[in-house]
């Protein structure tokens, strides 16, 4: 399989460490959220650094898949919300932060963005110590349009290798769209039947920050909460609908799903439709109105009698 050049990651790691140490020492930020090595060989996990001496623990490798933006939402309490916070961001993570800024969840001046020139990360199904190839790369990276995050406070000067890869989601969406409704229903029925309602997809999503989720309410109960096919289907449809126009495709939902449901497929389909209908792409600029919270008088209404 074609290997993907990740030789710049060592230099990028060194640059992240130096920058984190500098901003912590100078007191510009109260904490830096980044990645550190985990116990399993080659693996990485998120870390919050508050002491400049610990900045040497920061790394960036193909195993750094997590979207750290989720730690800055109000649903998560791991990070004290005081002062400016430094955060290590890949292009896809920055899109989530941009969306959160548009929804008034974060302020740009409260963040110190340490960008990462990213050639791609490993799919979660592979050994974290494995070499990054066109085969082992995460599906989201095969469609990446943000290898270099824009508008960061600090960005290492390296340029990532970005070979053209097969667009895995686009191919799968096209395959499903070509089926009949009955075949698509059979496909999704099988997928949703696997769901165990662990809500890991909701927990990991930067945009699922509601303090009370509609799907947890029982008066009135809109979505059945038990892990039965009816409730599962409703949950996944509601989830896709609530993320439409907001999700920028970090694919964390799909990565954390213990039952391997292709969740990002629904999100990518919605993104594709919003691009076609309203020429809107999430994550590139801070907009206080998304495509579903705004309108024009000339919107398409060919489907309405």
């Amino acid at each position, binding site marked *: 399989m074609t290997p993907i050049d990740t030789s710049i990651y060592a230099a990028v790691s060194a640059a992240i460490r130096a920058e984190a140490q500098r901003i912590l020492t100078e007191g510009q930020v109260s904490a830096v959220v980044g990645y550190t090595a985990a116990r399993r060989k080659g693996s990485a996990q998120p870390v919050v650094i508050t002491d400049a001496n610990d900045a040497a623990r920061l790394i960036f490798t193909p195993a750094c898949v997590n979207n750290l933006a989720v730690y800055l939402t109000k649903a998560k309490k791991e990070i004290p919300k005081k002062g400016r916070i430094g955060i290590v961001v890949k292009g896809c993570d920055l899109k989530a932060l941009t969306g959160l800024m548009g929804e008034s969840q974060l302020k740009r001046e409260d963040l110190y963005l340490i960008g990462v020139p990213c050639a791609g990360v490993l799919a979660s199904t592979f050994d974290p110590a494995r070499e990054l190839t066109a085969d082992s790369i995460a599906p989201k990276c095969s469609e990446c349009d943000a290898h270099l995050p824009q508008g960061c406070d600090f960005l290492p000067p390296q340029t990532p290798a970005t070979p053209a890869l097969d667009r895995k989601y686009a191919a799968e969406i096209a395959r499903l769209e070509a089926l009949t409704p009955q075949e*698509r229903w059979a496909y*999704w029925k099988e997928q949703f039947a696997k769901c165990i309602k662990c809500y890991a997809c909701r927990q990991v999503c930067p945009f699922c920050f509601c303090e009370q989720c509609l799907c947890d309410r029982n008066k009135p109960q809109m979505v059945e909460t038990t892990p039965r096919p009816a409730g599962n289907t409703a949950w996944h449809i509601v989830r896709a609908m609530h993320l439409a126009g907001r999700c920028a495709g970090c694919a964390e939902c799909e990565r954390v799903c213990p039952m391997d449901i292709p969740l990002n497929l629904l999100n990518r389909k919605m993104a594709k439709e919003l691009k076609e209908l309203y020429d809107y792409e999430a994550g590139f600029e801070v907009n206080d109105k998304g495509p579903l919270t705004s309108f024009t008088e000339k919107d398409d209404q060919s489907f309405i009698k």
Partner: protein
Amino acid sequence: MHPDKPKHAFEPKIIAFVCTWCTYAGADLAGTSRMQYPPNVRVLKFPCTGRIDPVFILKAFQQGADGVLVSGCHPGDCHYIAGNFHARRRFAVFRKLLEFVGVDLNRLQFSWVSAAEGGKWVEVVTELTEKVRAMGPMSEFKELALEEQWSGAINTAELKEAYNQI
């Protein structure tokens, strides 16, 4: 007085989510004008189409609706200025999602019916009812509601072996 109602093998259940200012008044006009339309439709009144959450449509299908109609004021006529504009975008996107999941969109109809359009209401309801009647019952969501995830059935060789060892 009324012509004899034709007998059908299947009477579809149609749920109509309507806005109180236009379509509800339009349906009321159809009634006071003594226009005839299929009694299959159950009308639910909302303040505005902007209040109609896509999850209501989902719930209707789950609870046994064979067809769903969503109807409100014409663009520009919204009592709350822009409710129907927001609804228009939301439903345009929700339709695409349902289509991708495999729901036949012929069962879901959107329309603009003003308070003066009693005739249009009759037309829309009749057309949807006949369309859904021809399609037969909506079984997909109903089957899901009856299915159990963990049935307890010992239906594989591995399960049988494990059961026999207890």
